[in-house]
């Protein structure tokens, strides 16, 4: 089966501190991968390398057949195909929810405004905030904002979605509404890489679990095996603490 994301021997340093050490990772289309690990283990940095919000210094990253390098053209092409959802939502506060969703399709994909709005409304309906389309981000609750951010990413019709701790900044009550949207997205066949501590969500949708510590992938296993029979001691310790 072809791989949509391939990382080979990826190394990255922040000054002298090595954040990623020899990361190898393959993702097939439609696969869902959940990355977990203690804070500072490099999991956010890893997925941020996939759309080049962070630069890697060694190794290769190939996304959908395009190699990530200095070439700005390649980077923009990959970013348009890879949607990203942030911990802090990062909606554009000066634009309405609808404009947040249509901006990139209109200016990057050059869609006519009418088509972009149609796609936006479709995605806003999918995350169930179509009634908030004309409001500004500041008027929405945290859960609604995060769902709007997911809709905004979906409007670029990406092949891959990256989630960087999407529920960590939310009240417990709002976590569920966001996870429901993500489950629905997973069932729709989207390729997803999710950094999260929500193990219930991981058990429900993940094909593979990845456990990272100190910049290395410590364990990679099928979800069931990962939770029932983890191999490394570090993973066992981590799971015993968060489950």
């Amino acid at each position: 089966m072809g791989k949509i994301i391939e990382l080979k021997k990826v190394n990255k340093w922040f000054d002298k501190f090595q954040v990623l050490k020899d990361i190898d990772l393959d993702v097939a289309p439609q696969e869902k991968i959940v990355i977990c690990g203690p804070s500072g283990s490099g999991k956010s940095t890893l997925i941020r390398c996939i759309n080049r919000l962070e630069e890697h210094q060694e190794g290769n990253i190939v996304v959908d057949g395009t190699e990530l390098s200095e070439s700005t053209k390649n980077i923009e092409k990959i970013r348009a195909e890879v949607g990203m959802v942030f911990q802090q939502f990062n909606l554009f506060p000066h634009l309405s929810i609808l404009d947040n969703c249509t901006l990139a399709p209109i200016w990057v994909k050059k869609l006519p405004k009418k088509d972009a709005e149609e796609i936006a409304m479709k995605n806003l309906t999918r995350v169930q905030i179509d009634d908030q389309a004309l409001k500004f981000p500041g008027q929405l609750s945290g859960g609604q904002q995060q769902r709007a951010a997911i809709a905004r990413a979906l409007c670029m019709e990406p092949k891959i979605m990256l989630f960087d701790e999407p529920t960590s900044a939310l009240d417990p009550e709002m976590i569920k509404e966001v996870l429901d949207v993500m489950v629905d997205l997973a069932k729709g066949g989207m390729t997803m890489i999710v950094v999260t501590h929500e193990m219930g969500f991981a058990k429900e949708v993940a094909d593979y679990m990845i456990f990272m510590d100190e910049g290395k992938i410590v364990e990679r296993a099928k979800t069931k095996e990962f939770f029932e029979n983890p191999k490394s001691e570090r993973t066992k310790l981590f799971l015993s603490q968060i489950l």
Partner: protein
Amino acid sequence: MNLIVKPSKENIKTFVPIGLSLVFLSFFDVFLNAFFNLNLMAFLPPQLSYFLPLILGLIGFYLIRIEFSGVRSLDILNKNINSNNFNALLTLFTIFIIIKSIPPMLDWFILEANFVGNSKDDCTGDGACWVFIKVWFNRFMYGLYPDAEQWRINTAFLILFAVVGVSFFVSEKLKKYFILFLVFVFPFLGIKLISGGSFGLEYVESAAWGGLSLTFIISAFAILFCFPIGVILALGRRSSLPAIRYISIGFIELWRGVPLITVLFMSAVMFPMFLPDGTFIDKLIRVLIAITLFEAAYMAEVVRGGLQALPKGQYEAAKSLGMGYWRMNALIILPQALKLVIPGIANTLLALVKDTPLIFVVGLMELAGMIGLAKTNPKWLGMAMEGYVFAGLVFWIICYAMSRYSQNLEKKLSTER
């Protein structure tokens, strides 16, 4: 203030009327004194009569200082201007000073001032000689621009005001074209109309331009150009490319470190020496470029403040959607950053308008310069006060209008509710 009875809710019915009449009596005394030179208390010893309004007022304020009186207007009054003896004293002083200063101001500006006449000899009163402004008004507006051609300046400004006025009432779509016209077409059309030299219009050299119209022309052009240059410099200073970054830093720090008056002087005197023989750049254009670049350096730092205030997440979100550098800045970053620094931008632009009089060092006479020239006219000596009060008033009106506009803009663009 050791009165036997303390004002309270029980005796409000007697204390408030007495207190209020004492306060009004004190105001009335000062009023009569200031406006009609009457002293009701003249029968008292002079020291006492001098301080009597203050004492009466203080006692009055003490009597009406009743907490939770149940009368809303009294509570508001007490809370704001009468919360303790010291504040009551300050209130009285402020009101007395205002009352006292009205008559002399009124005298100078209007009652004793002269409005009719054609020469200094017609000014016989003790007040201002507004005849000076009236006689020189044309020069203050148009400088040395020939009288017969002044309709050209009027037409240019009329077109400007008409277009701006109409643009408030047209739809968003049309508005775009109005703004494009105002920014890209009108400035050059207007300058051509005023300078002439073609279309059968007589050429008027820029040395003859002056007065308030020159203030407007220089301010408008400098604002128009310094803004985009400032934005580019601000972006340049934050660029990841070292060459662009250092050029921007160097430019900003160079211009910010030099007084405007020096820059203007250099532009007029030194700069032509470096030009090859035979080339000539109009003095006004050189001055305009100097002011524009000078203010652009300030503008750049204001805009950079806004850029730095934006969270990193905004950049990352824009990038993650596939936007390149220019689209990210134009659509996401600058709209937010500029909105944040509207007060700073207004500040810089106001300073720019008020800096225009400095062009006198190169011999250009805008409003203040023209007044400076007029007051040295042998027939009109001693008119500095009238002239500069007039200039101050005009500049204040311009600047206050700009300030109000910036506040409106801030309100209109605010999306954080």
